[in-house]
């Protein structure tokens, strides 16, 4: 049985429903990241687990016990808020020690625990300061200290890193993971940042407008997105999505270039339409536009290690990773060939993934195709 299990959870605000019956579980000790665009209900879900929002219907159980009607303090979980939510009038030591003070722990024991936590988080030199006198990263650490001092079995983080600058965010990402390894308490982190999600999660929960789109390890969610939403949301730059159909010869025909058919095998009847998904790194580039989708190289984005080619195919924009040795310039004509590695197919109607196994294109690289 999962450490946290959520069944048919719904939340309504007045007459609008924010969560539409969620089912999921968190295993003991795992690091789960809930990711989704802003407004999709991540915070609502987390706050319901914490007990800060009431449950409209459904059930939340922690450690086998239904906690729907428990006070936040009685659920054995601690929460770290986006704006840190420190007590402005208390010193760092008092902030961290406040939960223990409320639990009526003797002063000496309290001080010892606070010092121990401060040591773990590198806050010892700042114990007498007030939150206002700390940097964003330090405040975040104090908020974390206040959470771990109670030794909860479940940590809830609501966008804990989004108020930090980019460098600090990367550093805290690693620190959070390290802390999780050290404490091994179940952790649930909410974020709208897909890189944060991909890098931190043992398991990813992708949400969209009050529903769960997919649950799984980041690599699997990335490799086999369950819907066009997940496909477009995870990965940067995003996966290219084309409307396509099965051609007369059983290959793939993109609506962008209906007169060309690409090799590829899908278990679909000839003529049936679907959504073809190709990640930029799975897109092959031919240096002439006689094969593949005829495109114009509009812009090259140099990310240091890789270069992203933003191409125009008719009215549409398609991104591809430019091979290291490519000498193509902006304005050049080229051909974009889906594959040869992984292709994805989704239903045109529901947006759901069409085959449970990867629809890998069985494309043999031809002469004119450079394989990235």
């Amino acid at each position, binding site marked *: 049985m999962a450490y946290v299990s959520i069944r048919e959870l719904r939340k309504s605000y007045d007459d609008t429903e924010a969560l539409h019956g969620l089912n999921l579980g968190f295993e003991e000790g795992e690091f789960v990241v809930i990711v989704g665009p802003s407004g999709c209900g991540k915070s609502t879900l987390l706050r319901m687990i914490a007990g800060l929002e009431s449950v409209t219907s459904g059930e939340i159980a922690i450690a086998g016990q239904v906690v729907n009607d428990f006070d936040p*303090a009685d659920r054995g979980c601690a*929460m770290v808020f*986006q704006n840190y939510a420190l007590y402005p009038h208390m010193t760092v030591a008092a902030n961290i020690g406040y939960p223990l003070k409320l639990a009526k722990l003797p002063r000496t024991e309290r001080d010892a625990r606070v010092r121990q936590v401060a040591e773990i988080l590198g806050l010892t030199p700042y114990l007498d300061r007030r939150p206002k006198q700390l940097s964003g990263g330090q405040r975040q650490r104090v908020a974390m200290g206040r959470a771990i001092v109670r030794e909860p079995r479940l940590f809830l983080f609501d966008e804990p890193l989004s108020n930090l600058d980019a460098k600090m965010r990367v550093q805290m990402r690693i620190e959070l993971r390290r802390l999780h390894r050290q404490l091994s308490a179940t952790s649930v982190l909410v974020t709208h940042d897909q890189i944060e999600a991909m890098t931190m999660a043992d398991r990813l929960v992708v949400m969209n407008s009050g529903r769960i789109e997919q649950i799984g390890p980041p690599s699997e969610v990335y490799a086999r997105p369950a819907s066009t939403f997940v496909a477009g949301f995870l990965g940067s730059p995003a996966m290219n999505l084309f409307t396509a159909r099965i051609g007369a010869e059983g290959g793939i025909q993109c609506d962008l270039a209906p007169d060309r058919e690409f090799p590829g095998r899908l278990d679909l009847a000839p003529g049936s339409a679907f959504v073809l998904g190709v990640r930029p790194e799975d897109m092959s580039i031919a240096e002439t536009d006689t094969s593949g989708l005829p495109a114009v190289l509009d812009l090259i984005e140099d990310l240091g290690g890789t270069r992203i080619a933003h191409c125009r195919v008719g009215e549409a924009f398609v991104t591809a990773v430019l091979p290291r040795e490519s000498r193509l310039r902006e304005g050049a004509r080229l051909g974009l060939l889906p594959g040869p590695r992984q292709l994805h197919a989704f239903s045109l109607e529901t947006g759901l993934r069409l085959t449970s196994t990867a629809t890998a294109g069985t494309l043999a690289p031809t002469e004119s195709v450079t394989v990235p």
Partner: protein
Amino acid sequence: MTIDATLPGAMPRPARRARPARWEAGIGHGLMILTALICVFPIYWMIVTSLRPENAIFSTRLWPDTASLENYAYALRAVPIRQMLVNTFIVSFTVTVIQLVTGILAGYAFARWRFRGSALFFGAIALTWLVPLQVVMIPNYLLVSRLGMIDTLGALILPHVASAFAIMLLAQSMRSFPSEVIEAARMDGASHAHILWQVIVPNLRGTLASLAILIFISTWNEYFWPLLLSRTPENSVVQIGLQMFITSEGTQWGPLMAASTMASLPILLIYLVLQRQVIASFMKSGLR
């Protein structure tokens, strides 16, 4: 705080934000000095008059030629001013403390609890603020007289144990208190009492200090209600004492000004002391 008026930030047009012209600041300062003089002059005149001997009481010279404390001695002999000052202080202090406490409790309830009819209650409280003293004077008088409290300090305190102004001000400032901090406290295991007294109130020191000053001064200056209730000078407040120098045979201006000076000195002192505290706590408490 008044200095703000000449700061560039207070100028409405962004074009002027960057650099206020020198002469603009000069005019601003000049106006403020003038206003300050106009405000301070009556107080100055009160003190000067209180120091004048009786034959020079209506002199219009700005500076007294001879100063004497005769008026003070007379005022102290004629009326038990010391006792009255103590009484006024007791009443004002008690009213201030009680109004702050009831204001904090009611403000928290309105700000943090959703209960049936809370808007109605809040509206009713706001309405009592609009009802003038003259309307409730008679019912209140009947009430305290039934309670046998005529001519006691308790009767001066009783109608003031809660004030709409304090409740509304505190409810408003508690509503704007960051809700994440309160939620963090709930997660930490804080009860409502903990949240109110250990988390919110310490961060409202600035508001509470200014409110305390306002309540204290308005109670100190109250006249009608004590006038209605007082029977003996010993159980009365200093504003009643002042009125005793205005008799049907004429007004004793010198002693009246001396007594007035004595009545307003504590207020001035408290204001000076607390004003500094208010500004300091505004700066210290600043959320975030």
